[in-house]
């Protein structure tokens, strides 16, 4: 993530210099300057789409629809509406531009809400349909001038400054600079970290406390607003707008700009827009060859350069796994359990059931955890353990029954809200954010701990992964992935920690390390619920063991009791002959 942002910023600075040099050196070539001006406006649209595509993996083929809304808002309001005397053309433009941007943003919000329900091709088609509807209505409603559009859009004049003509080049690129700066600031801050996490793994992002839906809708609205904003300038620069100039093919062009340049980066969007703008200008003599070459380039980029041209500069192929040495800290001895902070149990499960189709995954399960203890949840494959975890932290919702976290009914809550109550969780398959470094991964626990302070460095040291600090998570060896996930779950000092098979895939030394880690977390007063198949670990570390079979609790007690319980033995070994 860091490498990408660094390259992105440097490229943006380089582009800024290029834009200035080009604007001065090329001032005499009006065709060239004009192409660069419209290229800039498409770049603004592309920046929004790049954010959307690169950070949420949602593909929109409807951005020209927002662009059209902005353009027509300005064209209609400044050319067809009679304003009260005294309102200058400049002021008219400002009002119309703000309005157009707002409408586009609100419609983006609406599409974003639709996007929450669909993914992939459905969403792509829905956005395409949105664009086609917008264009169709613009053609149909007489006030918008039908196929011939709206002409005579006045140039916005602010005192001695006129937003048009050769100078438009500078204003257009100024707009790009503003959009780029705003977007870059977002990407480099908390929002950027949240979006990066969402892009890598939406479920894990939700579980560390990031409201994925809110961010998704927000990015959609932002991308829509940027497209609308660019549209408002387009209409006034050109002095006219026709429906065909903002149609579905423009949407596809913009999508391809982002793909070509590299989604997820601002510079990629600008590069893609510039490449297209200039090939359009110089390619005129090769009428059909140009788009064919363009199509082939897109196919090649999709297959060989999934991070686009800009990706060449920051994206490395997978490197050999970096490994941190495993040292087992001295056993803490008989841990002095921290005093439970509350008499209310951190977790209480009351009569919870969950069905999938005809299959009963969890069947009327009830238990309450004693604060500051380690409880293991064991049972044969398919017993419903992970489903129960998912119900507890909101990844699925129980059909019946109640989940109480610190006394609050969270049964219908979304995972990020439950996370913010102090519930952390690890996954069977160690779901890390692959493109983020180890330190960045651990730092995402900040999303669940708004208000409370925590120290990433201390967490890394505590789990013995300080040497991996700057390693991208996707380059980690498996055992280290587990440790990083444990550090990410524990760094925010949760009250309740759910660990799903933390020992799976670990070697003997790593398992030993895990055992001491769990004991030390308990020493901090954290309540742990553990799914594990490594019975040695379960028996060593647990204060209590709950056994599930076919979704029901068949035993619940001290490790030693459970080990000798005939029902448990039968569940694991089969009925004796």
């Amino acid at each position: 993530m860091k490498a990408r942002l660094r390259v992105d910023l440097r490229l943006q600075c380089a582009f800024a210099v290029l834009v200035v040099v080009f604007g001065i050196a090329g001032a005499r070539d009006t065709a060239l300057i004009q192409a660069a001006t419209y290229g800039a406006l498409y770049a603004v649209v592309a920046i929004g789409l790049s954010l959307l595509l690169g950070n949420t993996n949602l593909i929109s083929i409807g951005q020209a629809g927002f662009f059209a809304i902005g353009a027509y808002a300005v064209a209609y309001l400044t050319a067809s509406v009679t304003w009260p005397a005294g309102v200058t053309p400049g002021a008219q433009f400002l009002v119309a531009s703000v309005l157009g941007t707002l409408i586009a943003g609100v419609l983006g919000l609406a599409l974003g809400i639709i996007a929450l329900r669909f993914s992939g091709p459905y969403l792509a088609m829905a956005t395409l349909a949105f664009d086609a509807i917008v264009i169709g209505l613009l053609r149909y409603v007489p006030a918008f001038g039908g196929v011939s559009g709206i002409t005579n859009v006045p140039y916005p004049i602010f005192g001695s400054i006129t937003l048009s003509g050769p100078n438009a080049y500078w204003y257009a690129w100024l707009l790009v600079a503003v959009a780029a700066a705003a977007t870059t600031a977002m990407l480099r801050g908390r929002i950027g970290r949240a979006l990066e996490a969402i892009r890598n793994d939406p479920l894990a992002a939700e579980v560390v406390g990031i409201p994925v839906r809110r961010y998704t809708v927000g990015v959609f609205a932002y991308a829509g607003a940027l497209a609308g904003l660019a549209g408002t300038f387009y209409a006034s620069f050109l002095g006219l707008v026709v429906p065909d100039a903002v149609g579905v093919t423009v949407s596809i062009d913009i999508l391809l700009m982002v793909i070509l340049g590299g989604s997820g980066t601002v510079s990629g969007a600008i590069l893609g827009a510039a490449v297209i703008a200039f090939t359009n200008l110089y390619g005129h003599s090769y009428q059909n060859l140009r788009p064919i070459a363009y199509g082939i380039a897109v196919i090649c980029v999709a297959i060989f350069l999934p991070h686009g041209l800009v990706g060449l500069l920051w994206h490395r192929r997978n490197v050999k796994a970096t490994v941190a040495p495993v040292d087992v800290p001295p056993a803490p001895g008989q841990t002095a359990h921290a005093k439970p902070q509350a008499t209310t149990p951190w977790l209480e499960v009351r009569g919870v059931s969950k069905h999938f189709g005809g299959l009963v995954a969890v069947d009327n399960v009830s238990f309450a955890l004693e604060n500051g203890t380690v409880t293991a949840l064991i049972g044969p494959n398919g017993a419903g353990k992970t489903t129960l975890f998912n119900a507890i932290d909101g990844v699925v919702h129980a059909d019946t029954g109640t989940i109480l976290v610190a006394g609050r009914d969270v049964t219908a809550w979304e995972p990020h809200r439950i996370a913010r109550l102090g519930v952390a969780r690890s996954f069977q398959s160690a779901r890390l954010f692959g493109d983020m470094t180890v330190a960045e991964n651990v730092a995402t626990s900040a999303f669940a701990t708004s208000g409370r302070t925590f120290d990433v460095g201390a967490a890394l040291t505590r789990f013995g992964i300080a040497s991996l600090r700057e390693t991208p998570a996707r380059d980690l060896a498996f055992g280290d992935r587990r440790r990083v996930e444990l550090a990410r779950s524990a760094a925010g000092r949760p009250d309740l920690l759910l660990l799903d098979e933390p020992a799976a895939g670990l070697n003997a030394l790593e398992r030993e390390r895990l055992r001491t880690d769990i004991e030390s977390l308990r020493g901090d007063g954290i309540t742990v619920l553990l799914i594990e198949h490594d019975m040695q670990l379960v028996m060593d570390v647990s204060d209590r063991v709950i056994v599930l079979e076919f979704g029901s609790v068949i035993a619940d007690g001290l490790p030693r009791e459970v080990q000798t319980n005939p029902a448990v033995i039968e569940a694991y070994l089969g009925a004796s002959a």
Partner: protein
Amino acid sequence: MIQLLVAGLTVGSTYALVALGIHIILRATRAINFAQGDFVVLGGLFALSFVSQLHVNIWVALLGSTALGFVLGALYERFILRAAARVNEGAVMIASIGTVYVLLYGHALIWGNEPQPLPTFSSAQQVQLGGATIAVQSIWVIALLAVMLAVLYVFFERTVYGKAIRAAANDPIGARLAGINVDRARSVSAAISIALATFAGTIVGPITLVGGSNGITITVKGFVGAILGGLASPIGCTAGGLLVGLIETLLGSRFAHDLVDPLVYAILLVVLLVRPQGLFGGRRIVRD
């Protein structure tokens, strides 16, 4: 009324075959092929070349165009879709959009920008039916659609290889463990899908003219049909495609031309929101 019905079914035939083609590729490779409509256009142009360059009968041209589509589909899957699938689902979608450009401007380069006429399948042009005048070619389109659907039905329901293709789409790992070459089944699926597209382009060519730049519109209308009927069900896709043709024709007789497409797309949005599995049910296969 009959006139409207026949016109609607004729338009809908293309959409039905496109929807079916999208369904078959989606099933086999989990990819939405945005280039489906451009292959339809290409099919008409293939037929045109067969007729005007090789001077063969239009029926031979239909066979030739369909066969070329089959070969092209297999190559398309092998060299573009499969390679992009190794990256991710989004890459497949993007690659197919790139293909739209290549096809759209590729055929403009070879055959020119202007739509051109294709000979009808029989010399009789019009026929009276229940007081309405019907184009004979429309009857050919509907009849040939029926024949193609019957062929597909027999292939997928009655032959071992057809069932093996369905099995490979249903559970690729299970299919491999039963000895089915899943990669080849995917290629054949794409080949069939694209053959359907070029077939459609040929049979409607005499009515719509061949060539032109409306491939993406055909894709989208076909997709609307597929969603309307249910993307997961082949029968739903076919019915949905025909339905879109009927709706479009009906709307076209009532409303201004510019309003028809937005209305059709509005129906798509409503169906997506209210009944994403489509009107004709079926389990959802894409989301989740």
